[in-house]
């Protein structure tokens, strides 16, 4: 049997190429996930450990993260050790650069003057060496538009102190990171605002502050890491989920390869049995073939994965240095896991086709070749049961908003569809191909002739397409609903409100000229004292709010007799509750109004035009409401407008920030998911090319006969292309229907309970693009097999065995 085994490998090795590629891709996927995880971990480790690299002990709270150290005790402890200790922590303070206000939550941390304890890395300028100097984190500098040489006032009132920026630094340790760093004596100016989380110590630790423990730097880093690690780990689990999908798709591709090859070789096997090979010998030889394919493909996949993973880390380091990525050591468990998964997938996928090999009787060799591909009856009972159970589960899931039930139901429905594939898919292929002329009809018949093979081929694509469409539709729904929600919460991107002075037309013109402003409208009103509010506020009316508001101006439509107040702008100061009746007084006129609340337009009360008319005869411009253009940088636009607002004593309400970052996050999620699913789809397309390529070999005589009967080369190529396109179209259309259905179920189960008034949003354009891409990819998958098929001359094809 050894000779047979080797000869089979030699003869058929080329036919395993596509299947091997599928396994390779899936294994490489797993390994890349492993390497990225390990890189992220070591990056975190390096970063976390940076402040303690020269320490012998790290003093930190006993009950971290739920307890803190008393700053006074820590300061005393640190002072006692002098040069041999360095405290790590920060103070959160307001800050100004000249007259320009910086973030209210500017964080200030210590920077050591000695090389031993300094962990920040200099990016430009120099390190601060004395009181009055500061280093700014490069990203903070970018966001706040700060540069070396700027003067910054940190703190307000008595605690205010001026520093000069002398350098920009990078901060590799996320937990110790601050926006700016000053020397320790300077930092002690704000000792009342200081939080100190840990102290790095050299030499004897001595008596510890109360509630503190001393650890080795390694033990300390490990403790902090496990905390952050959970996030990295859950990310890896999600990535592994996608890798699992890719592996599943590979199973389908390989199973198809083996069943096609074995069907073709069934007579060989029968002949072997005729000449005396035992059943076990035949099976063992076949299993060994699968094992060789599995081992080689998994090995290649592991190597490719290692290379790709390290390449990706280099790319991430170069493009996004903010992401902590360290040099990954080879994650041995992942490598072994990936390899084992690849091998297991191959063996599992070859199992079913091998069972047919076992059943072959020696007599099969003596029968004429017709009827070897006996049509297997496929029962519809099991798939139907799965469908019914799945749909019922989905119904209950929507009713109870249960994600677990939804996943179970979705899985069951999908399994039902996959299992009914051999019955369903050939019919769909026939229906799709029927009206398109004889070549396409022949292609459809070809596909329908091997129901199982066709079903498995489409199943692999179906998995990827269904998930892609579900993600696209789900995300579109989520995004539209979220946009509506945000539109209600932040109707005005940026509002500039002036309670002190009316705004001038000149200011409005300058606002409109600011880059990033798409539209700006003046809002008229009068300053009035609202009972219950500390300061007078502008009471305005804005019939034109719809021009700039994200909610179409709904928030500004207030009934006469009511006043709508921005709850966020006053926060705790808002003593009038919704529904209260309050007196509103402007000059000598007064009126009773009922309070309504909303959010997102700043410290102004919105009323109906009639209401305003009773308060004043001459409304003045008191606010400018601004709609930012798409892609405008919220921080920059806010800062620019702030500069215009400050001199006239106006305030800025920036709702754009929240808006943009949420939108960006969703975009990133969507594209990551699509990118990861793309891998499964690529494997599925390799599968289509594979099935087609193998059946081209198998059907060489059929093709030769058709050529003899008058099928031109072009027609033959088109027939094969049509077969691939039909397969991918059926898979895509079926996947689109399923995907939209699943997205709908998810919308009802998850989105609706979370966001009231959520409505299903189907991204028709994206769906169209997916279907088109799938059809084109199917065409692409047919190129090689079709060219090979058309090269064979009719005579050569007829003389084949």
């Amino acid at each position, binding site marked *: 049997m050894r000779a047979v085994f080797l000869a089979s490998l030699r003869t058929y090795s080329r036919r395993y190429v596509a299947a091997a590629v599928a396994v390779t891709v899936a294994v490489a996927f797993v390994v890349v996930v492993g390497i990225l995880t390990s890189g992220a971990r070591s990056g975190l480790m390096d970063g976390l450990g940076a402040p303690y690299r020269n320490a012998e002990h790290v003093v930190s709270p006993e009950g971290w993260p739920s307890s803190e150290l008393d700053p006074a005790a820590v300061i005393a402890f640190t002072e006692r050790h002098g040069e041999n200790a360095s405290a790590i922590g920060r103070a959160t303070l307001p800050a100004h650069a000249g007259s320009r206000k910086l973030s209210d939550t500017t964080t200030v941390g210590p920077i050591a003057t000695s090389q031993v304890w300094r962990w920040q890395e200099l990016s430009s300028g120099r390190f601060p060496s004395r009181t009055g100097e500061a280093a700014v984190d490069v990203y903070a500098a970018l966001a706040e538009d700060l540069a070396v040489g700027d003067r910054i006032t940190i703190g307000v009132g008595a605690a205010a102190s001026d520093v000069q920026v002398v350098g920009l630094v990078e901060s590799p340790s996320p937990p110790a990171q601050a926006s700016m760093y000053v020397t320790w004596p300077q930092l002690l100016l704000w000792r009342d605002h200081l939080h100190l989380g840990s102290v790095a110590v050299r030499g004897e630790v001595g008596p510890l502050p109360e509630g503190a423990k001393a650890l080795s730097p390694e033990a300390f880093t490990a403790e902090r890491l496990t905390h952050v690690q959970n996030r990295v780990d859950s990310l890896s689990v999600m990535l592994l989920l996608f890798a699992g999908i890719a592996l599943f798709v590979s199973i389908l591709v390989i199973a198809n390869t083996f069943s096609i090859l074995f069907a073709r070789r069934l007579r060989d096997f029968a002949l072997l049995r005729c000449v005396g090979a035992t059943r076990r010998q035949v099976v063992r030889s076949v299993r060994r073939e699968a094992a060789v394919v599995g081992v080689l493909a998994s090995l290649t996949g592991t190597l490719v994965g290692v290379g790709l993973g390290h390449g990706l880390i280099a790319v991430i380091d170069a493009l996004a240095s903010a992401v902590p990525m360290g040099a990954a050591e080879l994650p041995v468990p992942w490598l072994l896991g990936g390899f084992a998964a690849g091998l297991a997938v191959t063996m599992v996928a070859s199992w079913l086709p091998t069972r047919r090999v076992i059943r072959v009787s020696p007599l099969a060799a003596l029968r004429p070749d017709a009827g070897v591909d006996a049509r297997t009856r496929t029962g519809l009972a099991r798939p139907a049961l799965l469908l019914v159970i799945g749909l019922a589960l989905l119904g209950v899931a929507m009713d109870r908003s249960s994600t677990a039930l939804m996943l179970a139901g979705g899985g069951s429905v999908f399994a039902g569809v996959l299992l009914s594939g051999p019955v369903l898919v050939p019919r769909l292929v026939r229906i799709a191909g029927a009206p398109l002329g004889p070549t396409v009809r022949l292609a459809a018949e070809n596909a329908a002739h091997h129901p199982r093979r066709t079903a498995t081929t489409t199943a692999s694509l179906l998995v990827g397409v269904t998930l892609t469409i579900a993600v696209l539709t789900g995300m579109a729904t989520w995004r539209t609903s979220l946009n509506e929600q945000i539109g209600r919460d932040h109707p005005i991107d940026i509002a500039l409100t002036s309670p002190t002075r009316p705004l001038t037309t000149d200011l409005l013109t300058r606002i409109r000229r600011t880059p990033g402003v798409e539209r700006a409208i003046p809002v008229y009103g009068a300053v009035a004292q609202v009972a219950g509010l500390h300061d007078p506020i502008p009471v305005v009316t804005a019939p034109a709010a719809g021009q700039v508001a994200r909610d179409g101006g709904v928030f500004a439509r207030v009934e006469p007799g009511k006043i709508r107040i921005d709850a966020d702008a006053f926060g705790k100061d808002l003593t009038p509750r919704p529904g209260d009746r309050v007196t509103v007084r402007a000059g000598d006129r007064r009126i009773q109004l009922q309070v309504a609340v909303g959010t997102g337009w700043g410290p102004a009360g919105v009323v109906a035009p009639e209401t305003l008319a009773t308060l004043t005869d001459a409304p003045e411009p008191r606010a400018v409401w601004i709609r930012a253009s798409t892609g405008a940088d919220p921080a920059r636009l806010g800062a620019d407008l702030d500069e215009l607002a400050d001199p006239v004593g106006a305030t800025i309400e920036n709702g754009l920030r929240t808006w943009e970052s949420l939108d960006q996050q969703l975009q990133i999620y969507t594209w990551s998911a699509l990118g990861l699913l793309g891998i499964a789809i690529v494997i599925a397309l390799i599968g289509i090319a594979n099935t087609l390529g193998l059946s081209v070999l198998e059907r060489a005589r059929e093709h030769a006969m058709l050529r003899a009967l008058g099928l031109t080369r072009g027609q033959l190529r088109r027939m094969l292309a049509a077969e691939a396109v039909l397969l991918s179209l059926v898979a895509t259309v079926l996947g689109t229907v399923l995907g939209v259905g699943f997205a709908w179920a998810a919308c009802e189960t998850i989105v609706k309970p979370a966001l009231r008034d959520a409505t299903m949003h189907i991204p028709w354009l994206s769906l169209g693009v997916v279907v088109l891409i799938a059809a084109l990819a199917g065409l692409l998958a047919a190129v090689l097999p079709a060219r090979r098929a058309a090269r064979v001359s009719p*005579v050569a094809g007829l003389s084949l065995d």
Partner: protein
Amino acid sequence: MTGSRHDPAPRLPRTAASPGAVAARARNLTKTYGRGATQVHALRGIDLDLPRGGFTAIMGPSGSGKSTLMHCLAGLDQASGGTVTVAGTDLGSLDDDALTIFRREHVGFVFQSFNLLPMLTAGENIVLPLELGGRRIDDAARERVRLLADILGVADRLAHRPAELSGGQQQRVAIARALITQPDLLFADEPTGNLDSTTSAEVLDHLRRSARELGQTVVMVTHERDAAAYADHVVTMQDGRIA
């Protein structure tokens, strides 16, 4: 994808009046396979006229070049030298697409085995050449299918797939398919090679009836003397030459 409706290659003019009563003519036909030491001269200068409307058998031992000759006459393969003229067309002047369309319109085939597409029913197999040519299956075509199926005794088998037919029935369906386009020439390469003697006799009888009743020109390649006995003319080949 419906390329068959508009083929790029030019349609061939049908020559209504072929010279004399000759359906196909070969002159100094040679065919060589391979080169150097492994060169095989399968045909060594064949001159042959096949009479229109006749049933000709090409006889000879295995390896004498019968199939090669048939392939060259049928436009399945290009000859190495000499000329082949079928229905007034010099096959040497046609490219692959033109040859394919020529076969579709002028030639029918019956092979030793593997004649039918397994995924199509017998009826669908019969009309396949019409469909490949982009012709619509009109009433006249359906009428002809019925006529051929009757003559060949497969009328009650049209809805079956090849796997459900006996070897003899498969060959008779193949004959019907070859005749559906009313070809100038029908070639059969060892059509009875896989059949038992009773079934062989049936198939051969049908071939002869096609020639007689439908006026078809039939060329059959065989190495069996019994089969050749059904033909009107017998051409015997020996070592690439007509003996």
